[in-house]
């Protein structure tokens, strides 16, 4: 990882040298649009960063020779990120995607010193004249996966490995159990927090624990494939996240909630080429093609698949929302009235478990 950063810095230094020699405008000279991506983890072949890299490749393919791309992987959130983003901006990249929440402040900071470069930050909430934000409605896919899980569980116990109790993760959990209970009112869910986005050892221990406590469908909101592998080993079902993880659990994998960033990347690159890039404020879901379900396992009965397909259509058509009232929290308190739909604003600050989740949400520290 250090290797990549060092290589980048070297290239950047060389590029800066050339730019100095050829005059300050050389870096922005005509030629293919230079697009850069900053990744928080190695690309690997499944997971959060892998999906962003798939998006990068889709953009390259769609725009052919009009763009060249570069990515820097395993960039820690914090001071290193700022340095990497700055180097990318200084070396002539006109469009830079920073793909982790922790890059928010570094992105905003660097953007203010490079007004001609357009930045897009994933999952954040701060914008600027040249900084847009984009995110996906992961919970839509979670609801559908929940419907499948609720239909497949025999013990009526689902297991969920969570990273951190923040709104984005809670949306997914609550949508998952709501989906499950929509077809199986007896379904309950246990949650284990591992306090890390990426720690396969702990993710696996957590999944194993959930399985030994009776969960026969486990899913995860963490970055590795460990939970799916654990399910495969123990002979229970799993729902993958980020990427199709079926190759890590041929029998266990029911489906996966997958992310697709390519359309957004292509559109932003096109806008930048046309000189009309505006900071986006995108929270896209199944309708925008940003969230999809991976192919559903053959173990799932046809009527369940049909139901999921119908629901997916309704979500895309805007006829169904996973948080349509009544939404009650654990204590039975009504959070959304019958017939109403939870607003984006309320979802953005979600801080409760809905009915069906066992245990208490860890209190804010």
């Amino acid at each position, binding site marked *: *990882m*250090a*290797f990549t950063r060092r290589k980048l810095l070297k290239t950047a230094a060389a590029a800066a040298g050339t730019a100095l020699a050829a005059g300050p405008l050389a870096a922005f000279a005509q030629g293919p649009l230079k697009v850069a991506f900053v990744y928080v983890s*190695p690309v*690997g*072949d*499944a*997971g959060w960063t*892998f999906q962003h890299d798939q998006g990068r490749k889709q953009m390259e393919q769609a725009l052919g020779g009009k763009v060249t791309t570069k990515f820097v992987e*395993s960039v820690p959130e914090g001071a290193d990120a700022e340095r990497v983003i700055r180097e990318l901006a200084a070396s002539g990249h006109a469009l830079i995607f920073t793909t982790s929440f922790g890059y928010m402040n570094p992105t905003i900071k660097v953007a203010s010193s490079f007004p001609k470069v357009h930045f897009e930050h994933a999952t954040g909430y701060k914008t600027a004249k040249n900084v847009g934000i984009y995110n996906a409605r992961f919970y839509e896919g979670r609801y559908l996966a929940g419907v499948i899980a609720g239909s497949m569980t025999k013990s009526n116990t689902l*297991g969920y490995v969570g990273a951190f*109790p923040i709104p984005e993760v809670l949306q997914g959990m609550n949508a998952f159990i709501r989906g499950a209970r929509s077809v199986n009112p007896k379904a309950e869910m*246990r*949650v*284990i*927090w*591992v*306090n890390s986005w*990426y*720690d*396969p*050892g*702990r993710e*696996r*221990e*957590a999944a*194993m*624990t*959930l399985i*030994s*406590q009776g969960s026969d469908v486990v899913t995860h909101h963490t970055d*590795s*494939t*460990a939970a799916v*592998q*654990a399910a*495969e*080993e123990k002979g229970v079902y799993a729902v993958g996240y980020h990427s199709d993880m079926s*190759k*890590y659990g041929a029998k266990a994998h029911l489906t996966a909630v997958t992310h697709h960033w390519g359309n957004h990347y292509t559109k932003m690159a096109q806008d930048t080429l046309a000189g009309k890039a505006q900071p986006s404020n995108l929270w896209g879901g199944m309708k925008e093609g940003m969230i999809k379900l991976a192919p559903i396992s053959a173990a799932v009965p046809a009527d369940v698949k049909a139901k999921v397909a119908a629901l997916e259509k309704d979500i895309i058509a805007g006829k169904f929302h996973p948080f349509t009232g009544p939404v009650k929290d654990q204590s039975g308190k009504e959070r959304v009235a019958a017939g109403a739909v939870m607003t984006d604003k309320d979802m953005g600050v979600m801080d409760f478990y809905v009915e069906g989740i*066992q*245990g*208490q949400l*860890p*209190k804010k*520290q």
Partner: protein
Amino acid sequence: MDTVVAILAATLAAGTPLVFAALGELVVEKAGVLNLGVEGMMLIGAIAGFAATAASGSVWVGVLAGMAAGAVLALVFAVLTLTLQANQVAAGLALSIFGVGLSAFVGRDFVSIALPGQTPTRVPLLGEIPWLGDALFNQHWLVYLSWALFVALAWFLYRSRPGLVLRAVGESPSSATAIGYKVIAIRYLATLFGGACAGVGGAYLSTVYTPLWVEGMTAGRGWIALALVVFATWRPGRVMLGAYLFGGVTIAQFFAQGAGAAIASQLLSSLPYLATIVVLVIISRDANLIRLNAPVSLGQPYHPDH
């Protein structure tokens, strides 16, 4: 009852990497050498074990590769500190940092490759005991190997002549030299043994426990192993106890969460560290025993000519 069995079985699996690394380090320190590079050696063992298992399909080969890789890194340390008389603390820290970086570099191509999960081996007869059989005797063979290592080491250190010599080298290298033992050679062997053990611990992690390679996947277990040796006052039995205590609390806190305990998960995550240190400090608080067990020449460079 099933829960207790599940916790016990998971505890043994979780404690095993610590058992290997800490027992290895115990031998190193008993010989008077302080190698702080356990974390680095474990990581190198983990990536070597993972790569070899991925290539060959056999965990045996992976464990041997991990062992060899850990020993090679330990050899670097031994050359620096025993032959070239470098400071052991500084060299050990450097070794850790080097191991973290090198394993990440070598492991770049192995990120996100998954190995097949390993099935446990049920011990004949013992594994049939109700309850206990499921908890203790239905584990991966590396777990049994760690127990064998413990028994062999306890016998070696306290019941055998070479063990006595090893301890003498750690207590008073000059006396050991005076009665004709090659202190440096013995320390070399002990250091290599420690590196091999740390390597096996790492290989167990990456091939059996979590069959994945991830940068820094030991997550501080090397440092825990070092602390265990000290807090266990250099006694193998207590090292085992500490390792399983750490594993046990790690697993138990997940069970507590899954069962819906309303305790902040962040606090639960810190419990294994806290509990292990508190318990070991309490049982090992006798100052005389510590003095008796601590190798007197620990960490001091020794040159036979001086």
